[in-house]
């Protein structure tokens, strides 16, 4: 057997190694988890159980249940001020992950250049490589609050540039982008005739202000593939349910791939998602409030410990610098795990420029975060 070369080109996940060590240890406090610590609100789980009891165990339309698409359309209009036709501009996907894969496969031809800002979520680059596109990395910096700046973006653009992948609120930095900064990017997008894939899965987890969807900017709806889902805001990661919104032409193209691969998202998850959109607002608010409390707590404590941390305004990650310890991200993470039993993710797992940082998820109880920070403090004092 000979594996496809484009698959071999993608290195194995850098996180895997830590995962294997953690699995063999006891009493580890993990700040390395990229999903909510809350269990899905009960009314959503209950609606899902009820749907299965009622016999909803079949395929749905490739696009997803129309009722769900209508709810999604309403939800996006209400929250992010951009309108999509539920009939043909929304596709229900198996998480944002599938939406991302479909979007890239529908848009990227061999050799097309795709700009990806880093540090960023680990899936963007491999997906582009699987489509034989060319990844152009744009490094973002804490001094600029991990924003994409127009200057840096211009530098990466060539005649072959086709797509910009954006992810704000950002995993792993927690950075967000304000409207005025997004507008600067939009101008460049128009000037160079680019298309944007905007992964806004953390949109609801925005603190101190409201999330601005890139698609809601003047003229951007036609140039944006908006990806979002239920995993983070509604604590529904395991349901694997998300949605893609774009112009009719792109959604149809993505649906073509989707119908021959995934066919449709699980009907039980779609039913749960309908319940989430209809009655989930109160629970979301309560979870966001608690994330925000933990965010303030972890950022203040990290800075006190001496791990300088830019203030994250979204998602549930803090991304402190570990430069005072003079250790590399991997050394720091591995030794912290072995010596103090705290798991974090080394920043370089999210791109080269993540070196010198670690990602600490605060999707954990205040008690656990507190205990983890005491251990980190001990570790830093030993190595400072």
């Amino acid at each position, binding site marked *: 057997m000979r594996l496809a070369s484009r698959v071999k080109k993608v290195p194995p*996940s850098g*996180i895997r190694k*830590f*995962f294997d060590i*953690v*699995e063999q240890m006891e009493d*580890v406090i*993990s700040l*390395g*988890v*990229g*999903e909510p*610590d809350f*269990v899905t609100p009960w009314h959503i789980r209950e609606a899902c159980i009820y749907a299965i009891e009622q016999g909803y165990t079949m395929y749905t339309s490739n696009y997803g249940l129309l009722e769900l698409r209508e709810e999604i359309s309403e939800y996006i209009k209400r929250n992010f001020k951009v309108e999509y036709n539920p009939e043909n501009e929304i596709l229900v996907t198996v998480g944002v992950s599938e939406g991302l894969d479909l979007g890239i496969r529908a848009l990227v031809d061999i050799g097309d250049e795709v700009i990806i800002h880093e540090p960023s*979520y*680990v*899936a963007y680059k491999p997906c582009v490589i699987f489509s034989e596109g060319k990844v152009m990395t744009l490094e973002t910096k804490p001094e600029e609050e991990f924003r994409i700046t127009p200057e840096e973006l211009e530098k990466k653009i060539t005649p072959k540039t086709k797509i910009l992948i954006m992810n704000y609120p950002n*995993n792993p930095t927690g950075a967000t982008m304000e409207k005025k900064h997004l507008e600067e990017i939009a101008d460049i997008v128009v000037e160079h005739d680019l298309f944007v894939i905007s992964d806004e899965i953390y949109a609801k987890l925005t603190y101190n202000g409201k999330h601005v969807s890139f698609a809601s900017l003047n003229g951007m709806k036609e140039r944006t593939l908006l990806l979002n889902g239920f995993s983070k805001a509604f604590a529904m990661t395991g349901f694997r349910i998300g949605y893609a919104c774009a112009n009719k032409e792109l959604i149809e193209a993505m649906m073509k791939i989707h119908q021959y691969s995934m066919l449709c998202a699980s009907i039980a998850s779609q039913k749960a998602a309908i319940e989430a959109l209809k009655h989930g607002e109160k629970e979301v608010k309560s979870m966001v*409030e608690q994330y925000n*409390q*933990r965010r*303030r*707590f972890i950022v*203040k*404590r990290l800075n006190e410990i001496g791990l300088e941390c830019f203030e994250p305004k979204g998602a549930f990650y803090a991304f402190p610098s570990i430069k005072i310890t003079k250790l590399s991200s991997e050394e720091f993470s591995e030794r912290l795990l072995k010596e103090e039993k705290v*798991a974090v*993710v080394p920043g370089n*797992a999210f791109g080269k420029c993540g070196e010198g940082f670690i990602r600490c998820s605060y999707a954990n109880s*205040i008690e656990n975060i*507190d205990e983890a920070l005491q251990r980190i403090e001990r570790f830093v004092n030993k190595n400072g």
Partner: protein
Amino acid sequence: MEEELLKILERDARISKSKIAEMLGVTEEEVKKKIKEFEEKGIIRKYKTVINWEKFGKEKVYALIDVKVTPQRDKGYDSVAERIMRFPEVKNLYLVSGLYDLSVLVQGDSMKEVASFVAEKLAPLEQVQSTTTHFLLKIYKEEGDILVEKEKNKRLAITP
């Protein structure tokens, strides 16, 4: 900030003031001042512990008693309620709509003790017309806390 502060304390009454301050992004002094104010105003009533007595090995007996009463001129249900609430056996007391008037939660060490409380103290009260006693067989949830084994963490330890 005030509502958030109360919610934090409702979840965990023993959390330190400095931690609350950090969680809310205010100073510890402000938190102290607010808590004192809430205590003085009676918004914070008291700090108690939710105990699973059954697990400790000392079972308490609870009964929910539906009480029909004759309201009194000028005072309605308040004067009879006041008489009932003063008994230490009475844990909760509510005026309710529907088939009866007062709902009383009584706690005792044995069924006999609860039964004699009803027969000797509650039922003989002048305004009480009738009582219906329901002994509690199992407590699943109390004060918003589920009294069965806590759910274990099922998340993978590290995910991107």
